C-alpha cells in the first residue's frame, strides 16, 4: 500500500515536471469553458447536462495524452528494469501510476466546479443531476485512464501509446452504434459493453448501481490486462 503511494507521488511530480500535463490541463479548461458558456448562452438554462456530455468528449481526446507516458517512457529510458528489480509488485506500480493519473484528472475536473458556482450564483440549478454527472464523468474518465495505461504498456513510443489509447477508447465509446444493425450478434451485449451508454444515466441524474459496477469492472479489467502486459517479460 505504501509502495503504491510512493509511486503515485513520484508520478504526480513527474507530471508537473513535463509540460504535457500543463498543456493538457490548460486546453481542457479552455475547451470545457467554451462548451459551458456557449451551451449556457444558447439554452439559457441553469443546467450542466450539455456541458457534461461535451466535457467527456474532450477527455476522450485528452486522456490518452496524460496516460501515454506511464509505461512507455520507462521502457524507453530503461528505468522499468531498474524499477521492477526493486522490491515492488507489478500491480503496485500499475496502481500507483493509475492513481497519479486519476489525481491529475480529479484536479482538472474539480476546476470545472467554478462553472457550477456560477450557475448556482446566477440561477437555481437542480444540484442532483449535476453531482451525478460529475460522478459519471469521474468514473468514465478513470476508465479512459485504465485503458490508456494499458496502451502505454504496449510500446516504448509515447505517440504510439497515445494513438492506440485514443483508438481503443473511441472504439469502446461508439461500440453501441453497431448494435441493431448486425445479424447474429447480441446487440444488447455490444450496447452494454460500450462506454457511452452507461454515462447517459449519470448525465440525466440517474445513478444506477449497474452503471457504477460496469465502470468499476471496466477499470479493473484494463488494469489487470496492463499488469499482465508488463509481465509478458516473465514468460519463459
Amino acid at each position: 500500500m505504501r509502495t503504491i503511494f510512493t509511486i503515485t507521488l513520484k508520478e504526480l511530480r513527474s507530471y508537473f515536471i513535463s509540460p504535457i500535463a500543463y498543456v493538457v490541463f490548460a486546453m481542457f479548461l479552455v475547451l470545457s469553458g467554451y462548451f459551458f458558456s456557449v451551451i449556457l448562452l444558447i439554452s439559457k438554462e441553469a443546467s450542466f447536462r450539455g456541458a457534461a456530455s461535451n466535457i467527456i468528449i474532450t477527455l476522450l481526446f485528452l486522456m490518452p495524452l496524460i496516460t501515454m507516458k506511464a509505461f512507455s517512457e520507462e521502457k524507453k529510458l530503461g528505468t522499468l528494469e531498474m524499477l521492477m528489480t526493486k522490491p515492488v509488485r507489478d500491480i503496485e506500480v500499475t496502481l500507483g501510476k493509475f492513481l497519479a493519473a486519476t489525481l491529475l484528472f480529479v484536479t482538472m475536473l474539480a476546476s470545472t466546479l467554478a462553472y457550477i458556482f456560477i450557475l448556482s450564483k446566477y440561477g437555481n440549478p437542480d444540484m442532483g443531476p449535476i453531482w451525478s454527472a460529475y460522478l459519471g464523468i469521474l468514473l468514465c474518465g478513470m476508465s479512459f485512464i485504465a485503458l490508456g495505461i494499458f496502451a502505454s504498456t504496449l510500446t516504448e513510443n509515447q505517440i504510439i501509446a497515445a494513438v492506440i489509447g485514443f483508438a481503443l477508447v473511441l472504439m469502446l465509446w461508439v461500440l453501441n452504434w453497431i448494435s441493431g444493425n448486425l445479424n447474429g450478434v447480441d446487440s444488447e451485449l455490444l450496447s452494454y459493453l460500450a462506454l457511452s451508454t452507461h454515462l447517459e444515466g449519470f448525465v440525466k441524474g440517474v445513478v444506477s448501481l449497474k452503471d457504477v459496477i460496469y465502470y468499476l469492472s471496466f477499470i479493473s479489467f484494463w488494469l489487470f490486462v496492463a499488469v499482465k502486459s508488463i509481465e509478458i517479460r516473465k514468460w519463459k
Partner: protein
Amino acid sequence: MIEVSKLTKKYGDKAAIQDVSFNIAQGEVVGFLGPNGAGKTTTMRILTGYIPPTSGEVKIGGLDVFADSLVVRQKLGYLPENTPLYLDMDVEVFLKYIAALKKVTADKRQTHIRKIMKICGISNVSQSTIKTLSKGYRQRVGIAQALVGNPEYLILDEPTIGLDPKQIIEIRELIKSLAEDKTIILSTHILPEVSITCTRVIIISEGKIVAEDTPNNLENRLSGVAKVLLTVKGQPEKIKLSLQDITDVTEVNIKKTHPGGLIDLEVASQKEADVRKELAQTIVRNDWDLLEMRREVLGLEEIFLKLTTKE
C-alpha cells in the same frame, strides 16, 4: 552466497545462454567477462529476477530468485546496463524515491542517502537534475541507487562503459571500496577491469562459461609457455645456438637485429622452468653483453582472445 545452476534462456530457438552454472561465495567480487552479445546482460537480468530463465534456477542467500522474488530483491542492488535513470528528477529526490521503494523508513532516509551520496562522491550535485550531469556522475548516481537500502549483493552491468579513463579509475576505486562488506558481480568486456577489481573471473562466450578462476590462476593456466625477452650484443647465430643448448629452452627466435650488434631475442621455455639464470650465465660466459632481460607472462587480454576467438 549466490548459486546459479544450469541456467538456459532461449529467445525463440536461439539460446542466449546455455547451461550456465556458478557459485559465488559471500564477500567475493566476481567479474563476468565476455564480448558483446555473449549473454552477460541476460544472465544479470535473470539473477535480479527481471526475466525468468527458460530452465535452471538461481538462489541468492538460499532463496529462489523467482519464488521469493520480493525478499531477494530487497537484498539486491542492481545497476542495469546503460544506467537507466529518471532524467527529469533531482539526484537527492531520485535517491529518496528509491529509498522509499527499498522500504527504508522515512526517518532514516535522509541520513542513509547522505551517506551513500558521500561514498559515491555525488554530494555536490545532490540538487542537480540528473539530465544535466555528465556521464561519469550519472554512473555514480546509478551505483548510488543500487546501494540504497544497504543490499548484501550488488550486481553491476557494465559499470564503466562509456566513461573516460579518469572516470573509469574513479568508478573502479569506488567498486573496490564497496567490496569490503558486499558480494559483488560486475560484468564487463574490458579486461583490465577484472584483474584490477575482481577476486575471481568468469568468462562467458556465446552463452556458455568457458573459464572460471582467479585472474592470477587464469594467467598461469593458459600461458602454456613462458617467454623471456633478451637484448644482447654479440653474434646472432652463435648466441642462438648456445642458448638453444640450455635445458628446458624449447625455442629461440631472433626478433630483430639493430645496427651496432644489438639483438632482440625471444626465448621460449617450459612453463614451470625459470631459465633466466642459465640464460644470463651462458651469455656472460661467452663474453656477450646482456643489456636487457624480462620474463613475459600472458596477459588476461591475450587469454581472453584465446578463449573467445575460434581458430
